[in-house]
């Protein structure tokens, strides 16, 4: 586990004692990094010259013990606020039942997530999964679709269930691919699906390049609801731009550090999305994007 301490130093020489914010960011996931960067930038802007803020960053590996240890460490550090990215990290922090307020971000449909607590508030996102299915069907015939999720990440289970229901309505068979450890990646060697939907699982995104390589070998296109920041080869991504979540989490953190109770701040779900098609990957897979489909994209990777 990596422990980082960052300082945002205020300009005032006689500033108050530093406020400590503990952050739990699962693994090295670019999506969470993007949320965190905008969180820090906004917090800097909010407290510019008025307050000294100490950020204690925890990057636990995605498993229940590591999440729990990260939360306990921050409680032991007696931070003034815990900020979590993603559903499992948030659940771990809430489970500890400390009195430290929690602000979360990066949770899929937070109103549906088991993160309700007097001490917690935050924001998340929702992407219409039906659109993924719709775009897949405009690209090729889909009889069977694989869904990669992680049963230890609650919100990815909900995404799996939602997509399963949508697929059932269209007589599409589902292959369940549960990723809990690196060994589970082996399951992808024989997927036998026409397409694969990748949920927002942090575990799966930790090994995104390996997953894409295995699916590329079988010419199976992948759609994702987190941005393919490293351009690993996801064919299409429909995602909520994460910067806005970081900004809102900073706003919530600021209000809480100034005395507002988390229960007084409403949970917010971002629903704006961007659609990216990867034409280079389509070429690898022998898929042609029809022009009527390409014009829908917010961005095209050539």
């Amino acid at each position, binding site marked *: 586990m990596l422990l980082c301490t960052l300082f945002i130093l205020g300009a005032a020489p006689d500033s108050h004692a530093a406020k400590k914010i503990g952050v739990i960011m699962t693994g090295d996931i670019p999506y969470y990094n993007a949320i965190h960067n905008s969180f820090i930038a906004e917090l800097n802007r909010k407290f510019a010259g008025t307050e000294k803020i100490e950020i204690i960053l925890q990057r636990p590996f995605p498993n229940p013990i590591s999440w729990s240890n990260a939360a306990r460490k921050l409680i032991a550090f007696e931070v003034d606020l815990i900020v979590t990215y993603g559903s499992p990290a948030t659940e771990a922090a809430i489970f500890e039942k400390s009195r430290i307020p929690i602000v979360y971000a990066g949770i899929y449909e937070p109103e549906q997530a088991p993160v309700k607590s007097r001490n917690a508030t935050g924001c998340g996102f*929702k*992407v*219409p999964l*039906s*659109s993924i299915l*719709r775009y897949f069907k405009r690209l090729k015939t889909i009889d069977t679709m694989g869904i990669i999720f992680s049963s230890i990440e609650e919100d990815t289970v909900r995404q799996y269930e939602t997509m399963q229901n*949508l697929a059932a*309505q*269209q007589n599409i068979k589902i292959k369940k691919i549960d990723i809990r450890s690196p060994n589970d990646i082996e399951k992808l060697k024989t997927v036998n699906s026409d397409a694969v939907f990748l949920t927002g699982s942090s575990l799966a995104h930790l090994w995104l390049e390996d997953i894409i390589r295995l699916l590329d070998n079988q010419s199976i296109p992948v759609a994702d609801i987190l941005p393919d920041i490293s351009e690993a080869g996801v064919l299409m991504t*429909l995602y*909520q731009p994460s910067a806005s979540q970081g900004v809102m989490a900073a706003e919530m953190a600021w209000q809480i550090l100034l005395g507002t109770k988390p229960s007084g701040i409403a949970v917010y779900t971002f*629903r*704006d*999305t*961007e*659609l990216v098609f990867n034409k280079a990957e389509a070429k690898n897979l022998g898929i042609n994007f029809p022009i*009527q489909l390409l*014009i*829908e994209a*917010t961005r095209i990777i050539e």
Partner: protein
Amino acid sequence: MKFSSRPESRFLRYLIIFLLICFSAAPIPVSAFQQQKEILLGVEPEHNIFDQMERYRFLASYLSDQLGVKIKLTIMSRYGEVIKRFKTLRLDGAFLTSYTATMAIKQLHLEPIANPVNLAGESTSQGYIFVRKDSGIRGMIDMKGGNIVFVDPATMEGYLFPLAYLLQYGVNDINVFFNQYYFSGSHASAIYSVLDGRADIGSAKNTVFDQMVKNDPSIGNELEIIAKSPKVPEVTLCISTAIAPDLRKRLSDTLLNMDKNEAGKKVLQQFKALRFTKANKESFAVIERMAQDVLGSLTVHGK
């Protein structure tokens, strides 16, 4: 040298002068004087212009055979180019959607000839304003600060109507009211934008919306229509009055009687229409009023 002329040559000279005076004193329209050899019609682009041109190609071929005049088609590169294209391409007419037909009738004095009746039995269309059911938007007040997608500034269903709807509720500056607005370029794209969450609110034509729902019922389950415009002619063939009246009448009669003969029925099937119905200028009055209300009092550009 003295000029002398014989009586017959003098008569010939008088005859020529008489004829010259007649032609210069009473100019006759070229189209009426010469036999029109071809008619160039513009077609406004839809979502899939390849399918669209294929459909219109069958119709053009049928009309050419029936009229003995070559009917040629040209696609207008985008909505709203009617006025400009008529002048630069010297179009003789165009199949126009409601708002552009209104502009063309008013500014170019085109004559509305006929409207196709679609396979659902409708010759009209209307605008829908829609949102995702899970968006929490139920009316105009909830739209504030959201992102709205229009189709094109030259569409009634995808621009003029939503502006009129907003104006009705006192919104006279979309730059202030919305976080962002943009034009998708097609009705289908506007619908996909809202489905995906790329926009919170959308506006589009009911015929495209209903067809998409028919093809994929999940779309109907996810979107909610919160306002509908009055019905207006969906597509109208408008013809320049420079075309000879008898040819215009023959063109109109041919279209209106297509469903009464086997060859015509076959082409209608390929054109994806049941028949053509007679168009009239009065049908466009509602759009003209809407445009006057909206464009006179809204700030629509600048963001």
